[in-house]
Structures are given as structure tokens and as C-alpha cells.
């Protein structure tokens, strides 16, 4: 007996989308917990202002624009699906992946500079949080790049067609990763 259940839905919303939203809800509490810890510990103790001055503000600002642009290309990829334009889908997915990789490269360059100056994760509580928060975020970017790469390979091989709604689901995740950075950037670099 066939057990394909994904075609059924009691609410009219595809099950995949319901699942992704619940997944994002649980992700919000992971980053929410981490950010709350950072704020509480930071407010509870002095001497943090000095540490932030060693961060590379201009590189982080550039990275913010890179990630925001990648959200735009992700939307364009889904627009490609909706307009039935496989070419637009492929180009936009490729751009999203490249922008994600550029973000990670700039972040790695930033880490290298800080570690050269002696600011390792063991250099104090600010650096613990800095590496913990941006590192967890970078892992999420990497995961997003992996997901988008799988979609791109399927789109190039023309086997994505029955599952094109997955571009929207990947987009939900990608925008979430983007939004997390929008919180991390001012909290770490601008305060």
C-alpha cells in the first residue's frame, strides 16, 4: 500500500513548509539563548568596550552587504521558479552560493587577523562570545551553502522540477541566517 503522505494536507499548507517553520522556531531559541546570555553577561560586568575596538568594523560592514545581497538573489531564485525560468533559477542560486562563500572567506580572513594579534577564543569572555556567536552563525551559513548547492546541482541536472517548492523552503532558512547576522553585527561590532 502506498504510504506517500506528503500529498495530503488538512490545512492547505504544504507539510514541508509547516516543518521548516517549526525548525526555524527552534533555531530562534538557539540563537536567542546565546544572544540573551551575551547581553546579560555583558551588562553584568564592565571592561568590555575596549575589546570591541580590536574588531575589524569595515570588513564586517562589507560582509553585512554581501549577506543582504545574497538574500536578494535567493528571492530572485524563487522568482525564477514562479516565472518558470530555469535559467534565472540557476544563475540566482549560483550567485547566492558564491555570496555565501565570499561571506565565509571574509570571515575567515577576519578571524586570522584577530588570532594573529593574539585574540584567540581563550583571550577572555568577550572573545569567547565573539567566536561562539559568529562561529555558530558561520556554520549555519555553511549549511545554507550546502543546501543551495544541492538545489543547484538538481536544477542543472533538470531533476528539481517536481520539488521546486524546496527553493522557497531553502529561502526561508537562508533569510533566517541573514536575520541572525543583522542581530549579531550591531551587538558585537557597534556597541
Amino acid at each position, binding site marked *: *500500500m*502506498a*504510504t506517500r*503522505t*506528503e500529498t*495530503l*494536507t*488538512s*490545512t492547505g*499548507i504544504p*507539510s514541508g513548509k*509547516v*516543518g521548516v517553520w*517549526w*525548525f526555524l*522556531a*527552534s*533555531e*530562534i*531559541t*538557539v*540563537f*536567542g*539563548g*546565546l544572544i*540573551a*546570555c551575551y547581553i*546579560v*553577561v555583558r551588562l*553584568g*560586568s564592565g*571592561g568590555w568596550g575596549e575589546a570591541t575596538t580590536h574588531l575589524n568594523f569595515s570588513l564586517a560592514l562589507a560582509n553585512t552587504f554581501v549577506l543582504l545581497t545574497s538574500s536578494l538573489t535567493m528571492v530572485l531564485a524563487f522568482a525564477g521558479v514562479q516565472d518558470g525560468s530555469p535559467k534565472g533559477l540557476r544563475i540566482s542560486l549560483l550567485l547566492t552560493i558564491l555570496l555565501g562563500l565570499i561571506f565565509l572567506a571574509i570571515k575567515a580572513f577576519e578571524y586570522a587577523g584577530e588570532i594573529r594579534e593574539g585574540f*584567540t*577564543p*581563550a583571550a*577572555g*569572555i*568577550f*572573545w*569567547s*562570545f565573539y*567566536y*561562539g556567536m559568529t562561529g*555558530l552563525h558561520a556554520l549555519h551559513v555553511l549549511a545554507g551553502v550546502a543546501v543551495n548547492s544541492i538545489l543547484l546541482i538538481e536544477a542543472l541536472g533538470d531533476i528539481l522540477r517536481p520539488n521546486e517548492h524546496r527553493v522557497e523552503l531553502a529561502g526561508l532558512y537562508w533569510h533566517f541566517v541573514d536575520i541572525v547576522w543583522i542581530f549579531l553585527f550591531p551587538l558585537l561590532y557597534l556597541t
Partner: protein
Amino acid sequence: MKIFSTDHKTIAKQYLTLGLFWAIVGGLTSYLIRWQVAYPDTEAPGWGFIAPDFYNMLVTMHGTIMVFFVAMPILLATFGNFLIPLMIGARDMAFPRLNRLSVWVFALASLVLLLSFFVPGGAASAGWTGYPPLSANATYTGVNWGLNLWLVALALEFVSFLMGGINFLTTTINLRAPGMTFFRLPLIVWMQITAAVLFMLSVGPLIAGAVMLLLDRVAGTTFYLPEGGGEPLLWQHLFWFFGHPEVYVIFLPGLGIVLEIMPVFSRKPIFGYRPIIYSTIAAGMLSFVVWAHHQFLSGMDPRLAMPFSITTILISVPFALIVFAMIATLWRASISFSTPMLFAIGTLSIFIIGGLTGIFNGSAPVDIYIHGTYFVVAHFHFTLFSATFFAGFAGITYWFPKMFGRMMNETLGKIHFWLTLIFFNAVFIPMHFVGLGGMMRRIANPMQYEFLQPLQPTNVFITLAAVLLIVGQIPFVVNFFWSLFRGRVAERNPWQANTLEWSAGSPPPHGNFERVPVVYRSPYEYSSPEVVEDWLPQDRPPEPSTAARQ
């Protein structure tokens, strides 16, 4: 039966197998703990000498195993996976392959935890709550790899249950059979999805916290180490922000089992179906703002004690309402005392006592006296043992015919129930008095404190009762395996119950139903005047005359 199956019923049985395996390991640790407390520094029969470091490991692993590797897989994963699709009239979970991934990630977590016993230094020994700085620096406990693997095992388990929770919620939201509205769902489904929401929304900060603790241990960060500007108390907040909702993540499915069984063996509708649902949701929301009642003596701002005392005592209101609804369901019913019903009533009566002692612990002025004593140990065993084992046994004996297609033996079941009930109380009622006498938890040798020596006869009594409690589980093991192969073959609906799982075969085939059922009514229509029988299944079409009247 495929091992790498995507069938929710197979996955449920896999979780049950793993949970029962860990229950044996957890039972063994409790035997060794009790032996050391009653007869310190003597050789435990069948094991040998228990060194102080080994004792720390025992209490740590007992808590970890029983909460995360017995209660969670049995109450949440086994019954959630088995019952949700069957009860809502679905052919499987919304994401069957994600479901398969979740059980195998849990198996991996089990393997990692098992391996941690055999690495140099032994398994984790910083308490099941893993408080830093004790847990943040390997030199404090002498355990390095054991604690790292402990953190990895917990992280894997959380990932597994997150995937399970997403599945539970999506399935219930999207795969309900025609006519199965939210207010026609059996109560255990409500309990399971509430538990899934609680778990998903509370575990995130602890996942972040566990990563921070692991980084402190392996990467030199100082999140919890005061010498680097960190804050040890932070972990306690993260742990209990998860840890207290977790209590209800375990308890609500147990309560759901009891709520399913009581109407069937009372032949009466459940009393207050909707108020029970509203109480569950209220308790779920309150459970997010009670966590600091675990920390009255931790050194946190004492001004926080009053608000957390208030919320803690407030949360007993919705649970009291559910308890009264249960009693009202039993009131003047023609009760048949089958094994599942005995265990269900056992759960209720023991939980009431555990709930009452919780009020003592929740009041900051009283807690200052009893914090960290055996009174607390007795309290949470009254709540968690009743949920995990009494409700667990109730669920296993009730749904065994549906899971395995055979009936369990009633005589062995009743012997098992009475042995468990009597020796459970013999263990944990005296433990309250030991705690009030001032005996702290987790001390390896009470005899080295002069003021605790008069309590030693009680400790010996508790240990003997605990050994008998463990021996009292043998009838269950015999019954389980004997019934699996030799039990009477079960018909579709042996208990004459209303919910949809009893409309499927015993055991249900892959895909569950011959035809997707259509639901006409709420799940607890017992002794209805509309029909001759005293049960009225959810999917039986209304009589033409009744339909005409409507």
C-alpha cells in the same frame, strides 16, 4: 520487519527497545548507589567495591540515563510515534525519512553514551545537571573524555528529539483524517504535541549552552569560568530554562496515557475534555517561567525567589484541575481493574503525592531548608517515577495488543503492579524523612557524618526495598517476552475502545488503515444512549435515524 524502516510503528518499537535497554542499565546504577549508601565501602554483591569517584559517576549517569534515555524515548518517542498517526487517521508521519533519521541519531547518541563508560577516566561524574565550574575543567573531576562524550551524546539526543518534535507537530497539523478536528483529537495527542512544543522552544538555549560548555573544555573559552570573566551561574539558568519544561515534556505524555486509559476502563466519557486541554496549554506556558526555583540557594539575586515561588505554586493549579477531572471520570463509574487501569490509577495517586511535596520545594523559605537533600530526591521520584514507569507500564500493557498483536498476561501483570506499587512506596516514602533529617543527596558515605548515623537503619530499609523493587520488575520482563511469542492473539479492539487506532488491524499493516477513516465524533463516547453497546468508535457512521434528527 526492516531494521532501517520508515514505518512509524517500527520506529516506535525501536525507541521502546532502546528505552527498555537503558532502563536496565539505569536500574543497575540505582542498585549500586543504594548499596553504597546502606553499606558504605563494602563489596556490592555481583559487582564489587564502589570507589567515591565511581559513586559520583553512578549518580550522574543514573539521572542522565533515566531522564534522557529512558523517559524520553519511551514516553515521548515510543507512544508519540506509535499513536499520533494511528489516532489521527494518518498512514504515517508527515516526514517518514526524517523520522527514521531521528531514531538512528538517537541510537548513535546511545552508542556514544555507552562508549563513555569505557574511555580512560570513566563516564561523566559532574552530576546529571553538569554544573560548572565542576564540569568545565577536566582536572576538577578527573574525567575528561567521559564528560566530552556525555555532552556529545546529549547534543545528539536533542537533535533526534527536535526532528521527532517537528514530525509530531507537522503530522498533527496536516495529516488529520476527514472529520478529525482539533477538538476531536484524543487527549494524548494534545499532550504529545504540547510536549513537542515545550521541548522545541526550551532546548535551544541549552544546545547553545552545551556548545559553550564543550568549547570551555576543549577550546579554552571562558563562558563559565570566573577567572576569564565568565559566569558559572549562567549554565544553571540555561540548564533549568530547559530542565523545568523538560519535566513536563516527560510528564504530559504520561498524563496522556492515563487520560486515554481511564475512560476505557470506566466506560464513561472523560470529565472536562476541553478544560483539560486548556489546563495543559496553561501549564505549558507557565513552565517557561518557573526555572529558577531550582536555584534558590545558587547565589542568584534573592529578590528573584519570590516571583519564581509564585509561578511555581501557580502551576499546580492547572495540574490540580486535570487531577480532579481524572477523579471525576472515575466517580461512580463501573471500573474494571485490568492491569493498564491499575497502573493508570497508580500513576494518579503517586503523582498527587509528588505534586504536593512539590509545593514544599517551590516555596523559597521551605526550600532553603530542604534544598539538596533526599527530600528533593524523594519528591522528583514521586513525579518522574510515576510518569515514566507507572504510566509507561500502563501504556505498554494497554497498547501491547496493538503493537504486537498479542495480549499480555493479566495475572503476571497484576503481580507486577502490586510489587511495584508496594516497594516503590517503601523506597520513597521513608526517603522524605531521611531528607528532612538533613541527609544530602550525592554523598558517597553518610556514615562519615555523625549527625547522619541515626538515619542509617532507615537507609538500610530503603536499600532493601529498592532491591525488591528491582526484583519486582522480573514478572514484567517475563510477561513481556512470553506474551510477545505465546500470548493470546489479540482481536482489533480488545478493550472495546473508541479511538481510531482500534479500528486498524492488530498490529496495523504498513499504511495502517484499509481505507482512510472518516471521523464523526469525539473520542470518549462511552455508554452513549445512541447505541446498544457501551462504546461508540470515532469512525462509526451515525445511524440513519440519528443522522436524520441532526
